[in-house]
């Protein structure tokens, strides 16, 4: 498993290929990439703050959980901090498993946890000023599907 919290940009294609080579025994690879998205033309970029140390610890724990829960053969998380420009990749997750259901579930699990349980804070740099991104209720709700117990 590979985890990198970095300010530098990363190459989605190169990372995907390197991951696929390492995951050679797996049958299914899922990747997720998050990009700085222009919200109707008002955005210039994004500032991402993080908590060095805790970020790596929290993500490593999530990855270990995902690995055992979904019997992954490999996993990758890259997450950037600092100043990002429009359309740049913010982060990526990759999962490898024998079959597709577990690869998909693990990627969604990691994304749900990264959204709400990895100490990053996003600030949108807009043409009209800057604003901290608010946590979305649905991101907190999404976490609920991974906790044991009765489900609706």
């Amino acid at each position, binding site marked *: 498993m590979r985890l990198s919290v970095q300010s530098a940009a990363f190459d989605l294609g190169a990372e995907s290929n390197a991951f696929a080579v390492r995951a050679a025994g797996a049958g299914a690879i899922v990747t997720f990439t*998050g990009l700085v998205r222009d919200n109707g033309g008002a955005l210039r970029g994004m500032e991402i*703050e993080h*908590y060095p*140390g*805790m970020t790596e*610890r*929290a993500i490593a724990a999530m990855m270990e959980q995902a690995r055992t829960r979904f019997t992954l053969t490999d996993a990758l998380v890259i*997450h950037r901090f600092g100043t990002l420009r429009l359309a740049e990749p*913010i*982060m990526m997750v990759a999962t490898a498993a024998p079959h597709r259901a577990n690869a998909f579930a693990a990627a969604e699990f990691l*994304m749900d946890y*990264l*959204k*709400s*349980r*990895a*100490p*990053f*804070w*996003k*600030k949108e740099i807009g043409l009209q000023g800057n604003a*901290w*991104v*608010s*946590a979305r209720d649905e*991101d*907190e709700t999404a976490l609920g599907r991974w906790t044991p117990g009765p489900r609706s």
Partner: protein
Amino acid sequence: MDVLYFAWLRERIGVNREKIETQAATVADLIEQLAAMDEGHALAFSDRVSLRVALDQEMAGFDAPLAGVREVAFFPPMTGG
């Protein structure tokens, strides 16, 4: 004790880290002490619904005891991913 601030808590308080002498027994006690320090701190701690805390880099509740803790961090809900 090292106290760290992130995102808009950091901006309101004006520093990202400070050394605090405290006898606070719990996180809640520490919040009361910090909020009373000055206007910036008061503003930073005015919205407790959006306040999260980590003790030595692990998430904790406001009722968590501070005994043995070296690093306390306050921040709003995370927005990673």
